[in-house]
């Protein structure tokens, strides 16, 4: 039997403590000395997947950490709260880089000589100078565009035809006949847009008291009549089982996994018309920017170049979670990697017309007030 005296135990503990202190000291030194082998990404799901990151880790011998979140405001505020020291890349929807992160000096511009040529190979909607990737004055390139998609609502075309859904657009949700037959996705930032659109009001402007009152009345009605509020997996499941016939908010991003699983009758719909200068759909485009990190990893721009490669862009499009079109599909080398089924899953057949009928996701000027009303409306469900 091994006997330990108090002295030997204390000696062992002391030695252990010293080693732990030394190792953290080494880590800190490594951190301060240079970060050429490590990189941290704050992103939407997909970029944090092993399919995307592992080949990069191997090729560059890098330690890559990625955290995935599912709403933009949280990610922006992580940087605002001082995490610019932590992250090297941030991947968000289109308006944040140009309208908020660049004015607040949370991100750094990219080298235009290196990155502008990539836009030439993208789909026509992304040709340089791409509005959402540029600073207001048009001088700085603030990020790279990759995944995108229309995002309005989703129907089961066996129950509501695509033609009728596109034609009626948001008015479909004003029809009393669908009470109890639809769901609402729990992405409240997008739901703010949608409640305005169902009310026939442009979401992306400052709203009058009367418009806000209409918004509240609409939100109350929509929430009261909804069968369920849920995540996209629950909503797709409810569509497949027949619990509901349609849901908002939704589009390629939310319905593509179900379509890929063999349910092509479920389809993202972009209305033919609406209150946003005649347009009825909303779309999103992700812009990935380098964070204004005082010790930015040199791997960050390398990663942005890495995801432009045709095969990696294809992997990003079909990374775990959701399947989405990517801007690099404008490059024939990339496009040919997509199978017929994959194109079917992301509704390639109607993608360009749906994008043309949509306005880009934007910041609602009176978002806080609208969100408070939205949550009050939600509470009245019970």
């Amino acid at each position, binding site marked *: 039997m091994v006997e330990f005296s108090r002295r030997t135990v204390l000696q062992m503990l002391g030695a252990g403590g010293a080693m732990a202190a030394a190792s953290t000291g080494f880590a800190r030194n490594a951190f301060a000395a240079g970060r050429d082998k490590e990189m941290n990404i704050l992103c939407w799901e997909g970029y944090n997947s092993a399919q995307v990151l592992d080949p990069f880790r191997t090729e560059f011998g890098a330690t890559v950490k990625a955290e995935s979140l599912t709403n933009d405001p949280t990610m922006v505020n992580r940087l605002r709260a001082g995490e610019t020291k932590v992250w090297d890349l941030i991947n968000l929807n289109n308006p944040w880089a140009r309208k908020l992160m660049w004015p607040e000096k949370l991100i750094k511009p990219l080298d235009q000589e290196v990155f502008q040529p990539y836009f030439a190979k993208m789909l026509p909607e992304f040709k340089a100078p791409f509005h959402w990737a540029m600073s207001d004055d048009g001088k700085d390139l603030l990020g790279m565009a990759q995944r995108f998609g229309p995002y309005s609502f989703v129907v089961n075309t066996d129950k509501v035809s695509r033609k009728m859904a596109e034609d009626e657009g948001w008015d479909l949700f004003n029809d009393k006949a669908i009470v109890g037959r639809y769901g609402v996705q*729990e992405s409240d930032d997008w739901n703010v847009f949608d409640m305005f659109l169902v009310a026939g009001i442009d979401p992306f402007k400052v709203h009058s008291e009367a418009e806000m009152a209409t918004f509240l009345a609409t939100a109350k009605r929509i929430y009261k009549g909804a069968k369920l509020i849920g995540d996209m997996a629950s909503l797709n*499941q409810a569509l497949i089982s027949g619990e509901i016939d349609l849901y908002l908010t939704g589009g390629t991003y939310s319905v593509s996994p179900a379509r890929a699983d063999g349910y092509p009758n479920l389809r993202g719909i972009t209305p033919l018309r609406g209150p946003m200068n005649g347009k009825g759909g909303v779309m999103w485009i992700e812009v990935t920017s380098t964070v204004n990190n005082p010790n930015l990893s040199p791997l960050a721009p390398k990663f942005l170049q890495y995801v432009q490669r045709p095969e990696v862009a294809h992997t990003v499009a079909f990374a775990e979670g959701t399947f989405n079109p990517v801007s690099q599909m404008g490059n024939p080398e990339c496009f040919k990697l997509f199978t017929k089924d994959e194109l079917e899953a992301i509704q390639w057949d109607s993608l360009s017309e749906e994008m043309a009928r949509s306005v880009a996701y934007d910041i609602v000027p009176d978002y806080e007030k609208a969100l408070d009303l939205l949550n009050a409306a939600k*509470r009245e469900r019970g």
Partner: protein
Amino acid sequence: MKIHALQIQDAAISGTAKKSRGPFLTPGARCALPVIVLLLLGFAAPLTAVIAYSFAEPHSFNVFSSFTFANYAEIFNTENTVWMSFLWSLSLAAVTVLILSVIAYPIAYGMVYVFGRWSGLVSILFVFPLFISENVRLYGWVLFFIKNGVFDGTLNLLGGSDAPEVLYSPGIILFGMIYTYLPYMLFPLVLGLSLLPRDVVDAAKDLGASRYQVWREIELPLAMPGFMIGLLLTFVLAVGAIAESKVLGGQSVIVLTHDIEVSFTYAQNWPLGSALAVLITLITGGLTLFMLFKLDLDRVLGRK
């Protein structure tokens, strides 16, 4: 002489005590140091941050640098309907606890007195689901109850009738909570009942007590400490429940934890979310302290 010896002994004891206190801390305090540090870092620090945030300017991150009651004023504003969420959370938790106590008592009784050697297996059956993520189990129930799902399909196969629509309602939220929190009520109750001295029950029977009298005047009061711990544990957990309302209930009612989540995410109003969290902590904390005040922990742990 005797007095002298005692004085010497006293002096020796006090000398030892002084010596063992050492230059800084007593051995007891030194042993408690890791726990104190852990509590300060893991419990007091986050709680302080949440309390401090609740007094920060709304929609800001000016914690410790601003002070306002605006967040509390917003919650108590008569136009604000967040009281509905408080009400739903507290009433769902109260009903869950009530139903659980009725369900768990006979099972616990059975495990202590009736099942004999099978009670180990019964324990495992109740513990086993805890190894699977709560969300996965709840999504499993959705697949069971959903239209054309397992339940509906089986009924159709057997009798041709459709299953009743139970998903996306407050009732199914309650079901989910009862299902999730059953073990947390059951095992404290088992502990409470197993500490009950059998002799007392036998004595009561020998003295002519009826079965009801034995239960009412012997078993229940003696098992009460375990029962109280079960009530407390399940109530505190159930007040914080969110997955049942989201996954099974389709948010047919909005619980307080959902409002807190929205404040910290989509609304990015951490101060308001913190104020809501502080208020619900005060309510559950007050209840816990009240119950603990009433409760004799030494008896529960069998030290008396």
